[in-house]
């Protein structure tokens, strides 16, 4: 009896029920999160967070666009209900998103030979597209990404069951586009593969092809019979002009390339947490578009059923209300202009510091991010000695630079590079 009790006691101590999850590894910390965490812990009053991928005003604060506040007030006053959106999203929003990217005079837009579904900002739109390719693309599983690209591109395509590959893009020696390398690699991509291109404001390098280079790229992908997937997360935010930033997308379509496209309104409308985005497929005709749409819905339904309304309603109101649209274009231009001005000031301050290095790439590059050319050891010194935080690859978010701290930044960069 005592023996039995002892055995019982033992069996309770060595519990037969261990967790299902004992073998689950701790996921690696997100590299960019790590930068922000360290920044938060830093007590230096001069500290700068240049890892942040969100726009900041000249006081370093998040900026809620005035047209967004107006749209929100209009929505609140209409006392709209909260009924489910259709699976493909808010029609007024998706139509306006397509018109914004394709252009109102676009033949593809006017003929209706496209389908646009609402997606969960850029990531969600990319993922819908990736899943769609996995299920319906008859060519290869290979998706060619520029080297480097946004890190999440690789993860998204991989999780969707596709195979990420790379083509040369950034030349670290010149901090600009390795055009001949890119053309060389792209011309060798097997036919019926998929190639991803950043429509404007390449993330993370800020290096965009010039128009003549885009023309050559278009000719090459056409010749290689590649499916072109554009990621446009910064329309308007790059040059300040929405038409200029969409030029490559529209040119490709004009050349008869039926692209697929992912759009985000996180940055250009400051709608980050509202998750407003769209995924578009240019089709042969309206009938094909309807069939593609039906399949997209079948992909979306088991993912999250239907998309969130708030961000789409705001974006739709802005795009479809003339006064709000005008105001938005002005605000987007002012955000882009502030970034461009910070680039200019950074370079002139570096010169003032006495730096003899060539910093032209800082003003040549475009968009939120800048690949400074700094090496990991220099980045580490910037962080340790000056409390300037950025990712190891030397990428800075120019959005984190203000007229108040650009001088300090220039000073710090000069110290670690002289």
């Amino acid at each position, binding site marked *: 009896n005592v023996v039995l009790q002892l055995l019982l006691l033992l069996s309770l101590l060595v519990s037969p029920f261990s967790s*299902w*999850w004992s073998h689950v590894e701790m996921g690696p910390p997100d590299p960019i999160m790590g930068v922000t965490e360290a920044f938060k812990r830093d007590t230096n009053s001069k500290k700068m967070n240049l890892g942040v991928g969100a726009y900041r005003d000249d006081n370093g604060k998040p900026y809620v666009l005035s047209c967004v506040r107006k749209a929100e007030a209009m929505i609140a006053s209409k006392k709209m209900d909260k009924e489910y959106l259709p699976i493909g999203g808010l029609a007024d929003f998706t139509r306006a998103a397509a018109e914004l990217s394709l252009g109102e005079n676009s033949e593809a837009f006017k003929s209706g030979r496209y389908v646009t579904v609402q997606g*969960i900002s850029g990531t969600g739109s990319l993922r819908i597209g990736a899943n769609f390719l996995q299920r319906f693309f008859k060519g290869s599983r290979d998706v060619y990404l520029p080297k480097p690209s946004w890190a999440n591109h690789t993860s998204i395509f*991989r999780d969707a069951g596709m195979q990420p590959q790379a083509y040369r893009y950034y030349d670290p020696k010149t901090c600009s586009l390795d055009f001949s390398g890119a053309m060389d690699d792209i011309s060798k991509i097997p036919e019926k593969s998929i190639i991803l291109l950043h429509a404007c404001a390449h993330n993370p390098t800020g290096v965009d092809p010039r128009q003549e280079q885009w023309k050559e790229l278009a000719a090459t992908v056409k010749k290689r019979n590649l499916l072109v997937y554009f990621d446009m997360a910064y329309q308007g935010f790059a040059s300040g002009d929405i038409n200029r930033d969409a030029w490559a997308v529209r040119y490709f379509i004009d050349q008869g390339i039926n692209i697929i496209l992912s759009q985000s309104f996180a940055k250009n409308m400051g709608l980050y*947490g509202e*998750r407003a985005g769209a995924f578009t497929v240019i089709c042969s005709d309206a009938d094909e578009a309807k069939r593609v749409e039906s399949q997209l819905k079948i992909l979306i339904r088991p993912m999250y059923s239907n*998309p969130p309304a708030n*961000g789409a309603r705001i974006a739709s109101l802005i795009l479809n209300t003339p006064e709000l649209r005008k105001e938005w274009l002005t605000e987007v231009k002012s955000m882009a202009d502030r970034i461009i001005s910070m680039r200019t000031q950074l370079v002139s301050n570096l010169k003032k510091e006495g730096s003899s290095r060539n910093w032209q790439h800082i003003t040549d590059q475009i968009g939120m991010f800048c690949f400074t050319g700094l090496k990991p050891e220099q980045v580490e010194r910037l962080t340790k000695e000056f409390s300037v935080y950025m990712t190891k690859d030397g990428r800075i978010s120019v959005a984190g630079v203000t007229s108040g701290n650009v001088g300090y930044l220039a000073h710090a960069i000069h110290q670690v590079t002289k």
Partner: protein
Amino acid sequence: MIANDNSLNHEYLPILGLPEFRANASRIALGDDSPAIKEKRVGGVQSLGGTGALRIGAEFLRRWYNGNNNTATPVYVSAPSWENHNSVFMDAGFKDIRTYHYWDAAKRGLDLQGLLNDMEQAPEFSIFILHACAHNPTGTDPTPEQWKQIAAIMKRRSLFPFFDSAYQGFASGSLDKDAWAVRFFVSEGFELFCAQSFSKNFGLYNERVGNLTVVGKDADNVQRVLSQMEKIVRTTWSNPPSQGARIVATTLSSPQLFDEWKGNVKTMADRVLLMRSELRSRLEALGTPGTWNHITEQIGMFSFTGLNPKQVEYLVKEKHIYLMASGRINMCGLTTKNLDYVAKSIHEAVTKIQ
């Protein structure tokens, strides 16, 4: 409150969502005095509605449950169930999706013996999708005694409980009553997932507010699970929409708003209960063939009327009453203004068409 708070902006939420929302949402499911919460072995992933929570849970299970990337683990869905359950698990990569007996059409109730048999026969470690309350589409829930039997078999056979809780509060009018099954399983020591939706009980449908509650053996396991779920979220939607989560978090953490909400939920549930009793009494008064007590015995938004596809077709085509071919009706579509018409139409359908 949120609209007037100028300190709020539209910045990204963390990948796993708004912390105040996640904690409050899990607390609603598991109870204020949940030992699991006290022992810090509960985690939450803010998701796009109940669907999103199911999908994240399914994707995680496919990668990490019962081995690594074991797509062969059987997933059991009730017969019938919400059709999307199948698609969610299929698209997450599971290859073997099966049904378990649930609805007994003859007696219009739960086929408990069939259900228990299926669990007895299921391969060890199989995943079972359980409706926490207000089963969709049948409206038929196990009683507490029946839940105890279900839990006993699942424990003995090492089956994984994945709860789908889309109607907490909305079914009986009581949050605690509707969460009884989930809390019982937790008290029995199960590790489980619970996909929560705030679409119906908060009426936040298009804001896409959901939470995947994870209950683990200890804090360390839960942390590792969440870190891997974070990776899954990152490639699906990066981070969740903020508006709906703020509304729920604000409501749940304010005693006044929380009480008001509970009152609102009871009002909604009571209206559904009223429609049930009114429909049943009209059908019985008309002498409509068959028995109609299942209409008041079933619970939640839906009722499995027992109408066959031909009768359904009659209702749709001749009477402009739209319902599912399965005979499922959404009780919420009934109002005091249309009860008479619907009851008469059902009477016609049943008497004219066999």
